[in-house]
């Protein structure tokens, strides 16, 4: 029996540092390990003793690609712990800044990280030489997402204006109106993005995913809703840890999430879309119909189209929020003056999928325990399943082709390894 080892030491075009190791004996794939070698940063440890008010700024630093997701999940968890409700225009402004992050992050992944795979380029700069318009559209769309984050958050990476209870300062109507023309342009660009993505060539495969996402009564999910799956899960956010667990995988010493008693599951655009396509706004629904996108997309390569559709939705939603905007009287809901020991948990939909935060606070409002489950750790086991299936059907490829194919399969899920690292164990098995 011949033994083949496929090893990618540094997966390119993902956020953070990851590696892949595959062992094949004859025609059997013996082992697939998606490894994280990015060093741990111990967020859950040093959050202890910090004030509940510091969590949004500190946890934002887990990931420069999706800081708003960390700020939103931490704010909601604290508000849940303290019995605060953020409603009306403040709630709408939170959705608006989150839309900015979805637009920015999706445009980054679609054009700079993912599209080069389909068109055979090492990166977007090389792609730009032959397809300048596509890359320019992508950068412009990304820039408009960033502008929205700057307007509401002060800056696009680690915004400074989000706080428990709302914002430090809310925008005036004039300030929001100023970004309307850019968003109107973005709507067209986002629709073009969907057409561009739908025009790519995809391998003809489908995976049998358990999709997990939030679901809200009226809206495409972002900050609120129940946790649902296509296999019957329907629970409030607070029960997340009862149904999903992080398990210890001996071969890689990695913590990976799984549905208790069921196995791997998928969060992110494919899951949100499969479970909530009926909640998309009209332009997003209509472009999905125009390009013939099925209601449930099980081909992971086609996630690039779904990200495009979600981008249309985020732009449309932004315009809708600006249309209805009236500045609230106060920029934030006042936290309670006195504390008792309490705890709270919340989930929001980061561009890459559900991000869970849970905190226990003492009677001074200082954090005693923090738990954070990022989308990439939830998807890690499922990505390995995708890889196993890919390998089973592709063993005839030579090592180089097989390596490329594996890297592409990983990028389908836009993994953010910086996020995942602070709780994933490093693989230190040494020969």
């Amino acid at each position: 029996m011949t033994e083949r080892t496929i090893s990618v030491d540094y997966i390119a075009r993902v956020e953070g540092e990851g590696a892949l190791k595959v062992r094949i004996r004859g025609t059997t794939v013996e082992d697939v390990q998606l490894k994280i070698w990015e060093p741990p940063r111990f967020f859950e440890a040093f959050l202890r003793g910090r004030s509940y008010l510091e969590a949004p700024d500190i946890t934002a630093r887990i990931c420069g690609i999706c800081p708003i997701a960390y700020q939103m999940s931490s704010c909601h968890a604290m508000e849940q712990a303290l019995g605060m409700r953020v409603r009306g225009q403040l709630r709408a402004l939170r959705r608006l800044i989150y839309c900015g992050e979805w637009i920015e992050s999706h445009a980054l992944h679609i054009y700079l990280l993912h599209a080069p795979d389909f068109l055979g380029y090492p990166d977007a700069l090389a792609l730009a030489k032959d397809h300048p318009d596509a890359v320019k559209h992508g950068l412009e769309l990304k820039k408009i997402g960033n502008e929205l984050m700057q307007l509401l958050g002060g800056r696009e990476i680690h915004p400074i204006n989000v706080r428990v209870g709302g914002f430090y300062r809310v925008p005036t109507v004039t300030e929001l109106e100023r970004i309307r023309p850019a968003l109107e342009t973005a709507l067209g660009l986002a629709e073009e993005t969907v057409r561009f993505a739908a025009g790519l060539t995809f391998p003809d495969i489908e995976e049998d995913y358990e999709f997990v996402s939030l679901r809200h009564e009226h809206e495409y999910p972002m900050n609120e809703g129940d946790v649902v799956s296509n296999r019957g899960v329907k629970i409030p956010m607070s029960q997340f840890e009862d149904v999903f667990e992080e398990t210890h995988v001996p071969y890689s010493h990695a913590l990976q999430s799984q549905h208790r008693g069921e196995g791997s599951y998928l969060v992110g655009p494919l899951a949100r879309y499969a479970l909530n396509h009926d909640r998309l706004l009209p332009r997003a629904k209509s472009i999905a119909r125009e390009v013939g996108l099925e209601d449930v997309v099980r081909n992971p390569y086609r996630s690039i189209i779904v990200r495009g559709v979600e981008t249309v939705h985020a732009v449309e939603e932004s315009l809708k929020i600006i249309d209805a905007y009236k500045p609230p009287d106060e920029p934030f809901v006042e936290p309670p003056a006195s504390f008792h020991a309490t705890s709270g948990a919340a989930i929001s939909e980061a561009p890459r999928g559900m991000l869970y935060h849970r905190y226990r606070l003492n009677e001074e409002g200082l954090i005693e325990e923090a738990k954070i489950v990022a989308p990439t750790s939830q998807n890690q086991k499922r990505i390995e399943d995708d890889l196993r299936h890919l390998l089973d059907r592709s063993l005839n490829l030579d090592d180089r082709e097989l390596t490329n194919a594996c890297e592409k399969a990983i990028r389908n899920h836009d993994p953010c390894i910086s996020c995942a690292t602070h709780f994933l164990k490093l693989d230190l098995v040494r020969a």
Partner: protein
Amino acid sequence: MAQRKPRVAVWKFASCDGCQLTMLDCEDALLAIAGQVEIANFREASSAVVDGPYDLSLVEGSVTTPEDLRRIKEVRAESRVLVTIGACATAGGIQALRNFADIDEYRRAVYAQPEYIETLATSTPIADHVPVDFELRGCPISKLQLLEVLSAFLTNRAPNVPNESVCIECKRRGNVCVLVARGTPCLGPVTQAGCGAICPAFHRGCYGCFGPQGSPNIPSMLKNLGELGLAPLPMHRVFRTFNAMAPAFRTAADAAAAEETAR
């Protein structure tokens, strides 16, 4: 004969990826930059890698593992000019809070099997380990300052990145002083400019994410913060965030902590 384009590499150590993302966030300038330089090693953006040596290396992140210690020396050896970008690379980052704690206890708190986590007891800036040609501050760095540094090193001049305080930038922006007018605790007087004084512009006190300015008056800042009050947080904590290992902030935190213990 056409001159070879300068070869630029981007390296990552312990970090959130935000500072290297700043490069991709230079949307309008990105294709122009790519026209001027050869992006030879930038794994977040490209699968194509050109071997060194490199004319300019941008280094993000702090040193936190034994492997990092080896790798940073390799990066230095391959780079004509080495510029560190961001609070992690220049001051150890938020993960340097471990430097004030027991790392074994941290390991046990976060990981079920702490023995598998290979990590150093400290998170340290790159300049603690190899000579650095320029340190660009910020958590995250500023796009404009990044473009300035790139232009400067590509044309062999010193970057124009002033180490004045946030207050100077705040006045220029025309902000009302949050400290004086609203009594909001603000680290602007001791923090380096570069962010655009965004926190005061949003009615919030500066929290020091660009690290200490060139000549900070720490005793005066501590006195002022003491008068305004920061409860429930002990005062030393405001200096132990994203730039905790920057010498002036470290001194400030130590001084405040000593006073808190004495009381």
